[in-house]
């Protein structure tokens, strides 16, 4: 499993380094006497490519002992992290349209629910309190410009 993760991780970095390498060439790397805008990214991408390739190769030809290697963090209970990510992505898309108060209430409820689905009625109350209090602190007192949304809810 660990080897598979190494392969996927290094492939991502290899892809990124290739993209940066070609973009740096387009930007112009200049020469040593007059380095261009692509100079540093060019060398950084070569470094990243070389090291990631090494990790990738090690991931392919590594010993069978590595194959059995445990991940430093287990894959169990992935449901909660995935649900949190979905909640955050939905929140980011609705944030400006619905405004801080509504979306934060929904996000807080979703997060409480993800961790402990049983006490949903308690979560509704706490989410409403957290959303209102944080709005009061950040929007009213600290004057952070939070979106009020299409319903223009604020105080």
């Amino acid at each position, binding site marked *: 499993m660990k080897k598979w993760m190494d392969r996927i991780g290094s492939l991502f970095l290899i892809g990124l380094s290739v993209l*940066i390498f070609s973009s740096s060439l387009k930007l112009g790397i200049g020469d040593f006497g007059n380095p261009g805008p692509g100079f540093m990214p060019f060398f*950084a991408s070569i470094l990243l490519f070389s090291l990631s390739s090494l990790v990738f190769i090690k991931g392919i030809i590594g010993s069978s002992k590595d194959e059995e290697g445990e991940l430093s963090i287990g894959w169990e209970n992935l449901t909660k992290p995935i649900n949190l990510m979905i909640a955050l992505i939905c929140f980011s898309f609705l944030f400006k349209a619905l405004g801080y108060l509504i979306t934060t209430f929904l996000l807080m409820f979703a997060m409480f629910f993800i961790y402990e689905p049983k006490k949903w009625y308690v979560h509704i109350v706490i989410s409403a309190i957290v959303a209102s209090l944080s709005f009061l602190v950040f929007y009213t007192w600290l004057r952070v410009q939070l979106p009020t949304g299409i319903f223009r809810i604020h105080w």
Partner: protein
Amino acid sequence: MDFINDILLGFQVSLQPINLLYCLIGVLIGTLTGVLPGIGPTGTIAILLPVTFHAPPVSSIIMLAGIYYGAMYGGSTTSILVNIPGEPSSIVTCLDGYQMARQGRAGPALGISAFGSFIAGTIGIVGLMFIARPLARAALKFGPPEYFCLMVLGLIILIYLTQKSLIKAISMGAFGLILSYVGMDIVSGQIRFAYGIDELLDGIGIVPIVMGLFGVTEVLENLEKTTGVSLYETHIKGLLPSIKDWADSTWAIIRGTILGFFLGILPGGGAVLASFVSYAVEKRVSKHPERFGKGAIEGVAGPEAANNAASSGAFIPLMTLGIPSNVVMAMLFAGLLIHNITPGPLLLKDHPDIFWGVITSMYTGNVILLLLNLPLIGMWVQITKVPFRFLFSLIILFCVIGVYSINHSVFDIWIMIIFGLIGYFMKKCDYEPAPLALAYVLGPMLEQALRQSLIISNGSFTIFLFRPISCASLVVGAFLLVTAFTGYTKKKRLEVLKEQ
């Protein structure tokens, strides 16, 4: 006389009621951060950075600095009572601190940790006062080659200290450099790697990256775990260490302070390294090394003193050279830039109030921490019992507000989510986020220094070898890399860990 005037100016600034208030808030939040596992001072400073927009610059930096050294105090509480370090720099405190708690000596362990931290923090600040001015004066003579090599050395030390794969740590450094080059090139004005996305024209912000890597990633990791934290049931009494405890700890505190301070100055070094080295030294010099790991008070006093002294020392490269030596300092660097203050040798000349105000505030902060923390230990212990569902939800909420409030841009929230995911998967593959974050902050300065050096030397790399400071930095960096790759240090490190 200059020195006395500087200190007086510093106290004049730091003792103003508003600055005292910010200092108090900073150290309280810092202690809270240290006590609670899940979010460190880096994430907390990133979250609070936007809140400081409306505050005076000196007050903001006083508060942000307070979070850093406050976290060093707080981290020891959970290490001793719960055997879970709130901070990486408190990992070694678990070894003997928790054993002391199990033997019913939680009070003296917490007491010596607080007193040791106070003594070390205070001596560290005095050292900072003495070294800052001469170093800033010397730094005025530094040119681009010196800066370039010092920054490279800082990155190498950070990578050298990585606990996992060295190759992966260097990869993360390269990744961080690449990310820092997104946006406008400072020399030619050309837009780099924006790929038609308007929001990338100004580059990627440090705050969304740090909050993603250190805030969201931590929450995602903790969400996986189902086991709860159990507090060791012990009655905390007698926080004042006995005369014997003091006799056992005094030299450990002194050694820890000196070691920590100088390791803190080292670019790339910091509190984690300082605490580990201090523990190893105490064990080596002890007449009874077999007591270590079984509740030796020196094993608590030394590392706790070392990590606090290191947090003072870490301010030296930031304030005098403008080079952040670790990720927390990188966040403070960003905090200063937000207020249009450029850290570096000119800070002392242009903003002496900020320079000396922040330094002396660390002294008042240490006093506040000592006065507040010992009586409040019971409260901090109760805080570790906060249900995780509240903790992680609030961390995410503060991350979102913090990120959004900088540019009022949802795009920054997406960046935070993306880096949260990247950090999560990278951790699964044993890639560490710290080299990425530090390389990201140093990237633009590193590039500018390299390009200027090459222009000065007409493209000759010998410019780095003919200057003593740059040459020495490169030699030390090369030596560290060679020893790291030959596996010698890894073997040594494993031996030390095994011993511990």
